[in-house]
Each structure stands twice: as C-alpha cells, then as structure tokens.
C-alpha cells in the first residue's frame, strides 16, 4: 500500500511540475487532470475510498472540464501568457524554495512525526456523519451560503454592460 502511495505521489508531483512548466494552458489543464487522478488514487490507497471517488468525480470530471471550457471559450490566439522572467519572479521562486526547504527540515526534525507510517483507516460512514453534521455543522452551513454567494457573484461578474 505505501509503495503504491509513493508511486502515485511521485506521479502527482511530476504532473504538478508539468502544470507549472507547460507553456500552453491546455496542456497545463491536461497535466492537472493527471495530477488529480493520481491524487484520487493516492486517497483510495490511504484508506479513504469515498473521498477518492468524490475527488475523481468532482475534480477529474467537473473542474477540469470547467477549466478546458473556459480555455476554449476564451479562444486565445496570441500566446502572451508566458512565464514571468523578471527579477522579482526569480526572487519569489528562490523564496518559495527556501520556505520549502525549511518546511521539510522542520518536518524531518519533529519527533512526533517520525513514527512508522501505516494505513489504519478504512471506509466508515460514521466519520462523515460525526464530522459534517455534528462537529463541523457551522462550517458546513457557512459553505452552503458561500456557494450561493459565489453563484450570485459569478452572475454579477459576467453580466455584460448595459443589460439588465
């Protein structure tokens, strides 16, 4: 199980690098699809098959389609969306690398995290009931309001000038 988890994690990492490094945004979206599928399978291997299935359906199905739909809708001819090769961008990448190195250093020097890793979880609907409808009922309700607000905001944002 853990070997397969490493395999799918490395696959997700490589696809994630391709998302960042591809020049064409359509290829970025397809690399993102590979990354999402790999992460969904990693979740299934980590003992959360329900989350993995939901992840595959929503992300690999709906969100990638949304991205591709937006790219096709915009129909960009001029490839003006290149990398930002300015010094501030290099400084940002170096800063991100430094924070990453510091995070990994902290990760491998925290004694509580040096336990041997094993998958103890299995699918249990009671977790979702206790979590979503008891412990996190307030964030759950806030999320429903947030989705409504996002719906109204998207309609307001994409309304053309002059049309009521």
């Amino acid at each position, binding site marked *: 199980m853990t070997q397969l*988890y*490493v395999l799918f994690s*490395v696959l*997700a*990492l490589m696809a*994630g690098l391709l*998302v*960042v490094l591809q020049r064409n*945004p359509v290829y*970025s*979206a397809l690399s*993102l699809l590979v*990354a*999402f599928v790999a*992460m969904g399978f*990693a*979740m299934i291997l980590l*003992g*959360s098959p329900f*989350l993995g299935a939901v*992840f595959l359906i*929503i*992300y690999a199905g*709906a*969100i990638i389609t*949304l991205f591709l739909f*937006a*790219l096709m809708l*915009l129909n*960009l001819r*001029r490839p003006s*969306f290149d990398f*930002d090769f300015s010094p501030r*961008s290099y400084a*940002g990448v170096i800063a*991100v*690398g430094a924070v990453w190195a510091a995070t*990994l250093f902290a*990760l*491998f020097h*925290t004694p509580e*995290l040096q*336990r041997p*890793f094993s998958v*103890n*979880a299995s699918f*249990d609907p*009671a*977790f*979702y009931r*206790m*979590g*979503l409808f008891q412990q996190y009922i307030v*964030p*759950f309700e806030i999320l429903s309001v947030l*989705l409504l*607000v996002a719906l109204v*905001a*998207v309609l307001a*944002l994409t309304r053309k000038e002059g049309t009521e």
Partner: protein
Amino acid sequence: MTLAAALAFPITLFFVGLVGVVLRRNLIVILMSMELMLNAAGLALVVFHAMDPSPAPVSLVLLLLGLAAAEVAIGLALAINLVRLEGSPDVDLARILRG
C-alpha cells in the same frame, strides 16, 4: 516509511503549486496552481486520517471540495472579464479595480 516521509509528498506538491502562482502570469494557469495547492492540503489531511482515523480530516476535505468549487467559479469569471477587457488573461494587465 515514516509519517514525515509520507507528508513530504503533499507538502512538496503544495510548493510546486506555489511556484506556479509566483512564476506564471496567465490567470487561468494561476488558478490551476491554486487548485493544486488546495488539493495538496487535502491530501495531507488524508495522510493524517490514514494514520489516526478521526472524523475531522475527512470532513475538512469534503468542505475543501465545496470551497474549491466556489473559488474556481469566481476565478474563471474574473479571467473571462479580464480577457474581455484586455484581450489576454495576463494578470499584469489588470490595473483597474472595476469591470
């Protein structure tokens, strides 16, 4: 493999997404990188859940799915507005705070 080694993958994936946000100028690719960061955080929660099963991580990942849906909807609407105004999804072209 230790728990720290298992957590190193989602953390690295998060920083790959962060590099994308810093390095790219296309708003749609920046949104994709943000999705990558959000889902790396979700994968880290699932790693914790695999080690010590509890209701909190799986519920948070489900809430994260809804949050990401709202975020990507608004972000793509902004990208479409930017292309409509400036003809390109380059974030450096976004200088005014109105549509």
